[in-house]
């Protein structure tokens, strides 16, 4: 039944897009890291959907978190003679020789979601990634705008210590609130990107800040920690979303549920659609010879309660998050 629906969907989308399908017989191979997180699973789902939209024959190889599997997959794609290769690299180093091989075979490579060690800049066409400093900044700027000059004590739930995403999102948020002396980070601790840790740390914040009375806003480096923090606030008799503002990053489905219930205020999206811009860049490159910039930054879109969170939840819930 599911398979039939899939066939039907592909037939329909095929019919719809065959009119403008310039890329009809293009084959693109994607070496995906694995499916270690909900976001990664969503990226795979969205990539497949974006390929179908453009009528691209899309081949995905799941590397199960292993670089050797990614290298093998890329070499298999080269042997197969695909038109382009997408790579979401599991580590930053060690890609030179395999990318050289792709280059010799005149197959453009596009990096998705992560960059590689700089020595290989001429070995790939472009990198489609999000700017995690910018994500933090968008969150910070939203808070400054929302409190509109009133004094505001912020508590921060950091990601895993040492993870570049956590460092960048912290720095970005600090940049975002740098111009507003009324907004201050009063406490900041790691919640390891997990719900359980987010809840635990938030409980200690509430205790330390006079039962939460001195807290005006919570900033979490990801939505999962915020979902935990919201639970902690509710258990302490506080009203997140009204008494205490919340802003976090990632835009996973559950945070939209909380927003629809009025318990969360804002989230900044880390889009799972890295492949869409990559497809467009490859198509333009293949057909018109347009060389894209070395870095294509994805949009860090801000969602608030005004953006119909329930509808966003519905659209995201089946992506595999």
């Amino acid at each position, binding site marked *: 039944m599911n398979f039939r629906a899939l066939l039907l969907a592909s037939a329909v989308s095929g019919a719809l897009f065959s009119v403008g399908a310039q890329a009809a017989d293009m084959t693109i191979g994607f070496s995906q890291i694995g499916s270690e997180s909900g976001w990664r699973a969503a990226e795979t789902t969205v990539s497949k959907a974006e390929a179908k939209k453009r009528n691209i024959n899309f081949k995905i190889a799941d590397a199960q978190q292993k670089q050797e599997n990614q290298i093998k997959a890329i070499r*298999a794609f080269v042997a197969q003679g695909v038109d382009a290769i997408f790579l979401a690299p599991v580590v930053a180093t060690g890609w030179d020789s395999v990318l050289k091989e792709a280059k010799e075979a005149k197959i453009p490579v596009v990096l998705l979601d992560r960059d590689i060690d700089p020595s290989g800049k001429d070995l790939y066409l472009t990198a489609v990634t999000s700017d995690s400093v910018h994500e933090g900044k968008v969150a910070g700027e939203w808070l400054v705008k929302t409190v509109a000059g009133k004094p505001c004590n912020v508590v921060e739930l950091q990601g895993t210590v040492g993870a570049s995403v956590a460092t960048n999102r912290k720095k970005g948020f600090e940049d975002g609130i740098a111009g507003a002396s009324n907004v201050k980070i009063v406490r900041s601790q790691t919640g390891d990107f997990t719900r359980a840790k987010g809840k635990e740390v938030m409980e200690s914040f509430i205790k330390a800040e006079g039962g939460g009375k001195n807290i005006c806003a919570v900033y979490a480096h990801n939505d999962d920690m915020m979902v935990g923090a919201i639970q902690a606030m509710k258990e302490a008799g506080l009203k997140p979303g009204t008494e205490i503002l919340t802003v976090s990053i990632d835009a996973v489905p559950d945070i939209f549920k909380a927003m629809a219930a009025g318990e969360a205020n804002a989230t900044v999206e880390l889009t799972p659609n890295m492949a869409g811009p990559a497809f467009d860049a490859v198509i333009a490159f293949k057909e018109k010879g347009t060389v894209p910039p070395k870095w294509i930054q994805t949009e860090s879109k801000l969602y608030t309660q005004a953006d119909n969170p329930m509808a966003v939840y519905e659209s995201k819930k089946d992506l595999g998050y």
Partner: protein
Amino acid sequence: MIRSLGRLTPVLATAAVFLAGFVVCSLIYPNFASLRVVMNLLTDNAFLVIVAVGMTFVIISGGIDLSVGSVIGFTTVFLALAIERWGIPPLAAFVLILVLCALFGACMGAIIQYFELPAFIVTLAGMFLARGASFLLSTESLPITADLYAHLSDHALRFEGGARLTVPAMIMIAVVLAGMVLLHLTRFGANVYALGGSRTATGLMGINVARTTVLIYTLSSVLAGLAGIVFSLYTSSGYSLSAVGVELDAIAAVVIGGTLLSGGYGFIFGSFLGVMIQGLIQTYISFDGMLSSWWAKIATGLLLFAFIAFQQLTLHLARRSRRAPAGAHP
């Protein structure tokens, strides 16, 4: 003639499975039947074949070595640090790590022999030790930028259609040939088979069991170190998480290649084919692009079952024909 063919049956069966698989893949994907794909199989699986050669010796002798994957991981990290941070020339670093690996293997072999502990436990400890040590050295993925590495990874025999025989593949072929000579044509090789048949009987036959055991595990660790060198050439980097679980892939390859897990029987070439079959499945999945890559594990699992069942069957038949009265066969 017929008897020696019978002895080779498991290897022939493995070869038949590989060839059949290759033909099927080629019929589905026209680009599959190319020299490039064959050469890729050799390069991509070079490190695994090298480890599998060592594992074949160990398993034929009735043991097991679970430490090899971790030894590869440790080797890559050690090389990256030695070459990039400590300024040791690559070739000297290669020698150094192979000596370290030899000592490591010799220690494991000695503990197995003199404390009469199961190889399973001793090499399991070795596995944790080596993996832990590599994390201690570095948790990051470290690039290796030495000229020799760039040179070696670019150096290859090139053929028509972009196919290339790379340095890792050449090293691997040399190891397979050397392994075949060592196992099938030398006294040490004969001792390895004898050890797998029966330890006590081997001792009574006047073979130095202790020396042979220590040498077998030394060989396995040295080959794992060599596989680590090849692996670091393959990725031009060192990473403490590399080659996790490779010991199990190697054991699977050895068994698919017709070696008995209980020891006493097996061939190096069979292990080579066993790795190639696993590589073939992975390549097929990449070419297909729709199947989950976990099917590679499922297929390997099914093949393992099939081959073990096949082995038991041939063993059973062999015993029955031996028990039959001599006059039954004219």
